[in-house]
């Protein structure tokens, strides 16, 4: 019979100490690990991570459905870590423990610039340029073009197309007033009426204007178009004006916390059914969601910025 060894030593008290030590260490290790998970779950981090992972994954798939170049800002409340792979992404906080992951689809030829871990503080910027896809921490200056100074002084009306937007007329008028005030005192505001059954739109004095520049506020299914009418003589300049407006929006600091789709005016082509209403449309900028008070504030900021871009350039 074995008389020596760990559990056969006559000094049984030593063995008891070892067993006690094991009894303490192993449960503590288990407890720390499990309570870490429990804490993660109960502090809502887990649900947050899962939500963001799925939302961004779905959104990434949607971006790939677009044939055009897109820069999109996904607003975040807290500092979040992202890890994009070719067909999946991981989302985590802090030390990136228990990251939530989800998959997405893309074009087969699209290449992702993979980075180890991207720490995003406020806005996850997703950039799709042809077959190239990357994410950034802040808006790059990709959309900033050097525009020559031009004068387009015949903006004399604002047309608001409510489309399927859920906000009431009072909010539409509010927005129109803000934008009107930002442009010039003499501008008149016209609201575009729409017959949903026939999908037709009517604009008062449509023939008076040969060219329009459209600003689209809101997301698909919940947006409103704002068209600035421009005298036909100034149509050729409207692209440059649009370029200036895009630049001013991109440079707007407060804009970092809102959604942004900026369409490069040089690369823009008419692809939108609504846009075809106006043959000579120069540019569409799609901006944010107006379905809350914050966005009203955002539009006020934007309109101020636009008015600066339109009015305060050298002749």
């Amino acid at each position, binding site marked *: 019979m074995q008389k020596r060894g760990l559990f056969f030593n006559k000094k049984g008290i030593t063995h008891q100490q070892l067993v006690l030590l094991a009894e303490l260490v192993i449960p503590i290790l288990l407890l720390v690990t499990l309570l870490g998970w*429990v804490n993660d779950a109960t502090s809502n981090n887990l649900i947050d991570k899962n939500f963001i992972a799925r939302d961004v994954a779905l959104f990434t*798939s949607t971006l*790939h459905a677009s*044939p055009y170049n897109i820069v999109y800002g996904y607003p975040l409340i807290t500092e979040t870590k992202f890890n994009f792979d070719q067909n999946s992404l991981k989302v985590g906080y802090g030390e990136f423990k228990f990251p939530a992951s989800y998959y997405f689809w893309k074009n*087969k030829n699209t290449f992702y610039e993979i980075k180890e871990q991207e720490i995003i503080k406020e806005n996850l910027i997703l950039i799709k340029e042809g077959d190239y896809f990357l994410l950034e921490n802040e808006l790059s200056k990709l959309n900033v073009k050097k525009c020559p100074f031009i004068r387009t002084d015949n903006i004399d009306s604002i047309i608001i197309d409510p489309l399927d937007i859920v906000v009431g007329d009072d909010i539409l008028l509010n927005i129109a007033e803000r934008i009107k005030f930002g442009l010039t005192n003499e501008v008149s505001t016209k609201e575009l009426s729409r017959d949903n059954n026939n999908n037709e739109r009517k604009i008062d004095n449509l023939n008076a204007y040969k060219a329009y520049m459209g600003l689209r506020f809101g997301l698909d299914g919940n947006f409103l178009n704002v068209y600035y009418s421009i005298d036909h003589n100034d149509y050729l300049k409207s692209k440059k004006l649009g370029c200036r407006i895009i630049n001013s929006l991109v440079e707007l600091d407060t804009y970092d916390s809102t959604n942004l789709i900026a369409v490069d005016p040089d690369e823009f082509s008419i692809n939108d059914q609504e846009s075809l209403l106006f043959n000579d449309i120069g540019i569409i900028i799609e901006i944010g969601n107006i379905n809350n008070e914050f966005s009203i504030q955002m539009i006020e900021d934007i309109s101020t910025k636009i008015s600066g871009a339109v009015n305060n350039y050298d002749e």
Partner: protein
Amino acid sequence: MMNNKKAQTGHTIVKSLVWFIFLIIVLFSIVLLVRTNITNTIDIKNVEAEVFYYGSLSALSFKEDLIDRSYNGIIDLNKFNNHNLESKIYYGEENYHMTAKFTLFDKSDNIIKEFIYNQDGFDKYEPLTKSTIFGPGSATKVLKEIPIMIKDNDKYYSGLLKSIIIYPNK
């Protein structure tokens, strides 16, 4: 018995084992309780199927390259194939997420063309949609049917696009 030192040691080990197993049960009970009382997962499979469907429509639609405009209501017969769709909607080498069958009908209900996206997945998940027990291990089938225009080279005629989208319930 307890006066024997070997018996004492053996007794300690047995007692510790019981205590240890009990501790494990308690710890995992905590996790189980948290899991059952707190929702940690968000099921977006149905929304995902919608995104996939509309992405597919976009990929199969006629696109006028001259003005870079795609017409989502017009299905281009030349693009209506699995090769085209798998290049536009690519889930990776192994696709365990989504499979679909698209069938084009003319006005007389004759099949004009059909194809299956992710054939392996379809063979695997389609039988699972017939399962009467839902949850992980089964699959969900979403049926879509919309009237469309069919573009066959220079000819246009009206038809119907019937789609079956299947995804596994994970």
